[in-house]
């Protein structure tokens, strides 16, 4: 329990650090949201100056940071200039979608990677293993960007899947089952892309972790005792290889988040990704900082989850 308390405090410090870092970048950046306005001859300089002072952009940086912190404590996370609302409701709506996408993708890719990795490691250097290894090596070299484009192309050519958005326009008129069906159809393409993108890394790690374990004496003795191979693989070897894999889980959350940023933009999935790109193009700094903070929160959340799993899986850590 104390362990998680410590981790929580650590997380708070981390988020604080991230926010300070973001503000430092703001300080170094030339121009802001109202810079564009200034170029517009229809808006008087006085108006621009007034708006700047209204949002506190004319204040020195520490003061702005302090004001922002106050707004964080109020649960607003700053103010978006382009949407003219506090940042939090904007982000929360989007974050739900990102969470739905990445969680589904994480779950699916692990569900596929574990059996494949175990299977491949048990047939080391046989043709199946070679095929899988070659396949993942090739997949590894195909960046998410290209995967997404090719998947989009297939979807457009065949018309099997909707190619963008979260729901169909008729969504509100559908019954409950129809809603689920519609969501699955829409999420399929981006999830597919993320799964294909993260699969090779997971597969390789699972395979090498298992190959190492399968070489150890206790597995050889288990096999010697005549315990069925499936039991040896999944009940003996897999738990023994769990520790590095759980750490990998924390890491894979980070890569999935980064990958989903691009996939969301390409497949017009209304997550944090498109919002972030929009905010960057509009120079909406508090929205950018908010999006970065949220993504950090996700990543830290993933790591905490990995810690929790590790705690449950490893009696040695529980003892401490």
């Amino acid at each position: 329990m104390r362990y998680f308390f410590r981790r929580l405090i650590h997380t708070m410090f981390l988020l604080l650090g991230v926010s300070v870092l973001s503000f430092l970048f703001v300080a170094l950046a030339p121009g802001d949201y109202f810079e564009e306005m200034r170029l517009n001859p229809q808006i008087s300089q006085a108006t621009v100056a007034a708006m700047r002072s209204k949002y506190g952009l004319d204040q020195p940086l520490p003061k702005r940071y302090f004001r922002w912190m106050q707004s964080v404590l109020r649960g607003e996370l700053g103010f978006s200039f382009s949407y003219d609302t506090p940042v939090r409701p904007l982000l929360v709506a989007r974050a739900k979608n990102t969470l739905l996408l990445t969680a589904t993708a994480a779950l699916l890719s692990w569900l596929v990677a574990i059996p494949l990795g175990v299977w491949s490691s048990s047939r080391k250097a046989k043709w199946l293993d070679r095929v899988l290894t070659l396949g993942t090596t090739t997949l590894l070299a195909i960046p998410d960007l290209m995967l997404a484009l090719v998947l989009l192309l297939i979807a457009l050519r065949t018309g099997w899947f909707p190619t963008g958005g979260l729901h169909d326009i008729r969504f509100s008129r559908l019954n409950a089952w129809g809603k689920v069906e519609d969501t699955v159809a829409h999420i399929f393409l981006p999830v597919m892309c993320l799964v294909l993108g993260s699969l090779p890394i997971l597969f390789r790690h699972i395979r090498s972790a298992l190959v190492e374990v399968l070489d150890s004496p206790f597995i050889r003795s288990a096999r010697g005792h005549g315990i069925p191979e499936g039991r040896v693989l999944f009940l003996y070897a897999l738990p023994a290889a769990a520790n590095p894999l759980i750490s990998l889980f924390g890491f894979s959350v980070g890569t999935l988040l980064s990958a989903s940023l691009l996939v969301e933009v390409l497949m017009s999935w209304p997550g944090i990704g498109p919002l972030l790109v929009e905010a960057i193009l509009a120079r909406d700094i508090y929205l950018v900082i908010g999006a970065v903070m949220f993504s950090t929160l996700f990543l830290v959340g993933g790591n905490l989850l990995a810690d929790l799993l590790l705690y449950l899986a490893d009696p040695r850590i529980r003892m401490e």
Partner: protein
Amino acid sequence: MIRDHKLWLILAVLASAHLIVLWAHFFAPYDFASQERAIPFAPPSRLHFVDPEGHFHMRPFVYLWEPRPGTETLGAYVEDHSQAFPLRFFVRGARYKIAGIFDSSWHLFGVEEPARIYLAGSDDYGRDQFSRLLYGGQISLFSGLMAAGVSLALGLVLGALAGFYGGLVDDVVMRCAELFLALPWLYLLFAVRAFLPLHIPPTQAFLMLVLVIGMVGWARPARLIRGVLLSAKERNYVLAARGFGASDFYLLRRHVLPEAYGLLLTQAALLAPQYILAEVTLSFLGLGVGEPVPSWGNMLASLQKYYVLTSYWWMFVPGLALVSVFLLYYQLCKVLQEQVKLVRF
């Protein structure tokens, strides 16, 4: 030295790709900005050996692309067989400067005007995709390589400071590294990019990409290098040399840093493709190098329009180039990882 043919083969292919891209003005038949508005999305030119009368020619030739009569669709073209334009090597074309000083107009190959040779088709402005691919490689390949250099240099200095001196320096550097690693790195990259001006001239944009990508990624190499140095400096031969009165600089140079060289090499091979992708992603989303200067990222950006995506397969060519470069780098990485353990540097 490393005696592995595979390694040298991969290195040779990668190096020649970089060299060709570097001399794009010679290898590319056209300038990256020269347009042919009349024929947008022209398919790749077909190289013919046999003319309509059935005669065989040793020298391949191309025909002019003409809009297909009676169709309004973009990119529906037929060949105009009335005149053949043979492919010629070492021809005069668009003028360019070698190293910014010598004027030249030699190109490796080309066809006579008004015909144009499109090895990889043309884009929506009728610009030669092949030429743009080579010029775009200058931005994409070298920004990745140079950003990897920046990351490794930063990682080496900070990792060495942390690993070799330890104590307070170590704590501060490693807490900072943790901070950078705690962020999903593409988000971080975007965030840093967000605070820089949107529209900047190409050279500045290139340098900005190199610096931003390189600086965002310093933490992982720094941590790895710190780890290596931490164990390296504890070795007895380092203590022994200290006992002979060696300075910190001597110890670092002679005994400690050589331990990190192998790591630096593999990290370079790992980071370079990752950073190429970062540049491509940024430029793809319009946050990197802007038109008309090509990068593989902004060349792919036209695929965001569904009609381009479904109709013109040659717009995928930069993506193919990207995947091949990635394959090469991953193979390099693999071979290096196997070799580095065996090699005395």
